[in-house]
């Protein structure tokens, strides 16, 4: 029986780092945090081992591969958890970890490389039996090529970062005149967020719903899925609310996609936790968009329904263990909803609101889970994304989960910076959300109608 790691390096920050460390400690593993100067005094690293990687800017700290790997090695860690974001989907980083004797808690570098190149990934998934969205054959060389591809597949089109995720580095062009600007902006944002400015194009399917499938694989070829998540409530491609099961999805289409996704995961030799993202189009067909070769922000939704700790599974699988359960052992029950609470002002065009959190109280209650790095007095740095916390509510059905979430959000206290809580409450109370009358292009119940 392979053993577990003694020390795991956490190459991430904030809520992500706090989440990973919690499972490490439960398993008796010592977490070591890599931190930037901006985070070195944050509450979530207090009392833990840490290595200062560099200045606040992520390019010189969390995104600097050599610093991160050297920090993990010299702090005597034997494995590294990349979390999500930053270097989590960088195959060079995964390979660098392995080259220096660190187990990278994610899929093998070559599989990540293949799935990270989103257009080849689409092709591979098409071969494995998944339905696709029409788009460019590969990376767009320049604005002129973007224009030519857009003219072929038809408007509106979506420009997407090849190394993207979390909705960054994406721009829409509704007609030929908008292509160049969308192309340049997508590139600039992709470069800043991921250090890679390559973009590709897909036909923009409007009025669609975003559905994704959580997958888990070991090194021995065993794959299970943990059901699907619906992430349709979005703003500018940023997910706001995720839930499971998907409220609008035919049972036979769900079965077909879950099975096909698990089969495709096995076909590419995937290891660890991963997610396949689909667009549910107007005909009720799930079309493959991309695979995220990492844990996702919203993994907690699947954890809430299955009782499986995905970080624990990543660590076990990374240490060479076989999955301890088969598909038929996975019980997917009830309904779970997650709200991402950001430091943004929903009443002022979602202006990011860095600052000091003067009062903070996280909600508690039956079926409520809160993942956060925030403590009273925490200063939200301007360098990173604005996620403050995630609230997950579980119930027997959607209505119960909604009611529990509303009660929890009413209990949440955050003073000092603006948050998106008022928007979440408006969504959860809206008739459009409760009756599924929304899609990725419109936020149900927001902005609020003035009376």
């Amino acid at each position, binding site marked *: 029986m392979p053993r577990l790691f003694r020390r795991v390096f956490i190459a991430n920050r904030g809520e992500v780092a706090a989440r990973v460390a919690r499972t490490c400690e439960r398993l008796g593993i010592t977490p070591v945090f890599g931190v930037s100067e901006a985070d070195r005094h944050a509450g979530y690293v207090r009392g833990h081992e840490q290595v200062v990687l560099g200045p606040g800017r992520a390019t010189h700290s969390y995104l600097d591969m*050599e610093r991160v*790997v050297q920090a993990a090695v*010299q702090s005597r860690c034997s494995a590294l958890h990349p979390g999500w974001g930053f270097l989590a989907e960088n195959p060079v980083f995964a390979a660098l970890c392995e080259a220096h004797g660190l187990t990278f808690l994610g899929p093998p570098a070559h599989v990540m490389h293949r799935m990270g190149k989103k257009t080849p990934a689409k092709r591979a998934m098409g071969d494995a039996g998944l339905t696709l969205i029409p788009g460019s054959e590969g990376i767009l060389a320049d604005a002129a090529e973007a224009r030519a591809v857009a003219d072929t597949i038809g408007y509106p089109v979506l420009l997407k970062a090849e190394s993207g995720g979390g909705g960054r580095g994406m721009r829409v062009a509704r007609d030929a005149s908008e292509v160049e600007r969308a192309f340049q902006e997508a*590139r600039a944002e992709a470069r800043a967020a991921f250090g890679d400015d390559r973009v590709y194009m897909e036909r923009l399917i409007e009025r669609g719903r975003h559905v994704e499938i959580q997958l888990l694989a070991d090194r021995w070829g065993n794959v299970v899925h943990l059901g699907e998540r619906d992430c349709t409530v979005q703003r500018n491609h940023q997910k706001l609310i995720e839930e499971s099961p998907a409220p609008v999805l035919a049972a036979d289409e769900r079965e077909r996609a879950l099975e096909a996704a698990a089969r495709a995961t096995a076909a590419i030799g995937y290891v660890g936790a991963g997610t396949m993202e689909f667009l549910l189009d107007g005909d009720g067909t799930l079309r493959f968009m991309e695979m995220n070769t990492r844990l996702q922000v919203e993994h907690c939704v699947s954890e809430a329904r299955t009782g499986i700790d995905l970080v624990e599974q990543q660590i076990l699988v990374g240490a060479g263990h076989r999955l301890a359960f088969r598909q038929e052992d996975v019980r997917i029950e009830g309904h779970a909803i997650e709200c991402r609470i950001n430091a943004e002002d929903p009443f002022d065009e979602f202006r990011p609101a860095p600052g000091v959190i003067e009062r903070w109280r996280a909600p508690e209650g039956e079926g409520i889970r809160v993942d956060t790095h925030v403590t009273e007095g925490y200063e939200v740095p301007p360098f990173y994304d604005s996620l403050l916390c995630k609230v997950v509510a579980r119930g027997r059905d959607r209505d119960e989960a909604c009611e529990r979430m509303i009660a929890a959000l009413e209990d949440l206290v955050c003073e000092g910076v603006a948050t998106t809580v008022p928007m979440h409450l408006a969504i959860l109370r809206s008739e459009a959300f409760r009756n599924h009358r929304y899609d990725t292009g419109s936020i149900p119940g927001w902005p609020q109608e003035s009376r």
Partner: protein
Amino acid sequence: MKARLERRDDGTLALRSPCVGLWREAPRLGSLVRAGAPLGRVEVLGRLWPLEAPPGAAGIVVEVWEPNRKRAAVDYDTVLLRLDPEAAGAIGQSTAGPDESAASGLVFRSPMAGRFYRRPAPDKPVFVEAGDVVEPGHAIGLLEVMKTFNRLVLGGELPPRVRIVAVVAEDGADVERGEVLLRLEPA
């Protein structure tokens, strides 16, 4: 690689690590360090990088990080050495910056803390240049806040036409909320 210099309130100089790594061949206590002097080497992923003293560094070593280790693990910003400049008779350097208070008249301030860009893309021309005459509503730069790019647009209580006297913030600079980005005058 150069160590980073910090002047401390007690008059000593701190030389800080520019990287994460294993530091070896550290100078001994009492040795003299000047700008450009070798400060040993840092091992990063198996490669050895020579480390040298930065401009402005001059003094006698009065403190060494983990002096008894052959290879000391250092973080970014770890204080490797403390120098006493007086012991070396070093010249003090003025650190006074330009006088901000002299700025009078119209300015454009950053609405948020973030990173300021003068161009829409690295290969594109700048939004505005000193001498340009613009009207409110004109984009003057991008501000990257929490990985999102925001267009900075002239607005507020300005004359209908203004001339840009100077672009104060550099391209790619981290700016604070309220920091002056542009100096303006009515045109």
